[in-house]
């Protein structure tokens, strides 16, 4: 019995008290997931961020993401939502040869996602292809996922989004959480994430996306190369976003 199963079993025993009241409804929620499992199996989407190719001052990926997914921007750091963001890092102690780094941060699409583990209504869940999704119609806005995400990659709609540039992508009300989902809606239609497309259009090719389970894919080969690192692997969250030049 691994840690996950242990928590599941232990939790199930306790939650059973309230769960017993809602058994009929409980059984209905799994069929939907089972259906998508067959379509999505055999894939494990992952991304490699090549920081050596990422251009300083370029915002193409971030802009494309914001437009594609209707990500809210209020011009206030407290409530702005960023599915992908740039951060500048400096060494905490002076050390020869260490200069500041520029890093792209996004949802790490953990294979062991703490956000999904804590979501009380299973609004955040991991698909069969490894993508961590948020169901905006189910989220109750408790923000426990934001507490649990050690990467601060999850965001909450504190305010009504002022702009909805993409009519194709669903709107969501204020009061629900969200984060990057590798543009799952585009993937399902055979496309690629908007940030990856945008980065490629600039010629930088700093974002490489693909199926980690396909040994022939570029991402799989870059990861197999051994120099790709993940953020805080010691946390045991098993991110599927890798960095080159970190």
């Amino acid at each position: 019995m691994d840690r996950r199963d242990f928590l599941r079993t232990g939790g199930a025993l306790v939650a059973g008290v309230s769960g017993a009241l809602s058994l009929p409804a409980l059984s209905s929620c799994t069929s939907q997931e089972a259906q998508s499992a067959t379509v999505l199996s055999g894939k494990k989407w992952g991304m490699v961020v090549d920081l050596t190719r990422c251009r300083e001052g370029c915002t193409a990926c971030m802009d494309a993401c914001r437009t594609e997914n209707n990500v809210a921007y209020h011009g206030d750091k407290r409530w702005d939502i960023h599915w992908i963001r740039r951060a500048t890092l400096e060494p905490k102690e002076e050390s020869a040869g260490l200069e500041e780094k520029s890093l792209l941060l996004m949802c790490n699409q953990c294979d062991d996602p703490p956000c999904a583990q804590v979501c009380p209504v299973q609004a955040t869940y991991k698909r069969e292809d490894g993508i961590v999704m948020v169901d905006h119609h189910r989220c109750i806005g408790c923000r426990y996922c934001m507490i649990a995400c050690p990467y601060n990659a999850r965001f909450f709609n504190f305010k009504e989004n002022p702009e909805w540039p993409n009519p194709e992508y669903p709107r969501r009300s204020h009061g629900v959480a969200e984060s990057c989902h590798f543009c799952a809606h585009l993937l399902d239609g055979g496309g690629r994430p908007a940030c990856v497309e945008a980065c490629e259009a600039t010629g930088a090719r700093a974002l490489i996306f693909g199926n980690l389970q396909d040994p022939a894919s570029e991402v799989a080969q870059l990861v197999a190369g051994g120099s790709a690192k993940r953020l805080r692997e010691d946390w045991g969250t098993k991110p599927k976003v890798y960095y080159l030049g970190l």
Partner: protein
Amino acid sequence: MAMDVEFAKIEGRSVPYLTSVGVLAALAVGGFAATLIMHEHGLYLSGMTNRVPWGLQIAMAIFYIGLSAGSLVVSGLYGVFGRMEYKPFARIAAYLAMLFLIAGLLSILTDQGRVDRVFTKPFTYVNATSMFSINPALYSGHIMICVLYLWALFKEKGTLTKITSLVVVIWAIGTHTGTGAIFAFVPRELYNSALLPPSFVAAALSSGAALMILVLVTLFKATGRHLDDHLIIWMGRRLLSIFLVVTFYVLLIENAHRAYLAASHEAGMFFLFGGIHSFMFWIGLICVGCVIPAILLFIKRTGTSVRWTVFASTLVVVGVLFERFLIVVPGLVHPPELLPGWEVTDAALWEGVVGYSISYLEVLQTLGVIGVIGFMFMVGLRIMPLAPKEARAAAGA
């Protein structure tokens, strides 16, 4: 020989009674209005942000849950340990425990982004690995057991009282452990600690016992009924003081462990010496909430005075309020170390060490919850025989 305790409703016609009921009702209405406004326009009207997504309401929720431990203390004395002289307090303790659990649930409820979905989704999509799924079950179960226990007390059903009070004690430990686990079981440096649930239980017992002392002394004084000093002094010196020592001990180990290990040293030092929250910790929690009241209770001259016991209890309640805030906020204010040895200096998101300031609407919500349970308490005293006519240490012995 079983002691006969007479219980009686309070008159409830005095000006102070009616005034306080009116004020509490007004607070409840204010809290309701604040919640409506916030959920119409969005939670940005609170002081919370994408970096500090939990604030006052969650801190208050766990504070109330902790206070409900008062029932554990008192019901345990009479029901489990058979101390008959504490029977007079059993009903009021059970009723208060129920109210505090309701307050905890109300605080969490009004803090949700989509309050409208709270009554359906958590029941239809239970996630057994979520402490937020497990805890509402624990809290509601606790409330139901309290109701049953209260009923057993009202009907003077001896066996059922014994069973339910034992179940309440065991269940309460589960409730408080579960509440601590909301924080302890997530991978954040200042949250992730196996000692958090036990320290939560210890602080819960301290604040619960302290609040019971305050409520009992105030209630007996206000109704002019007789309360034997020994009962209160024993609770202060033999219960509260021990709980305080345990709380202090667990807090000491938890923080020493965090500050000692290289992996968590920086976060540990941030908590202890890194900002305004450190003042809350040292002054509010350690001095005011633990050390000073413990000393007051241990010294014979002050510890055997009801007046000083009440003072010490007040300090404990305030101290534990700080402790609850310290569980929630510093762990969020402190930035995660995404790349060990590096710090974020510039970003789109508010990175690094951030602040949290409470908004007036959050304060109104908090006062509203106090209004609701305060109102229920006052009305309960009038419509149910909750309070004893007198409480004597030697009676029936």
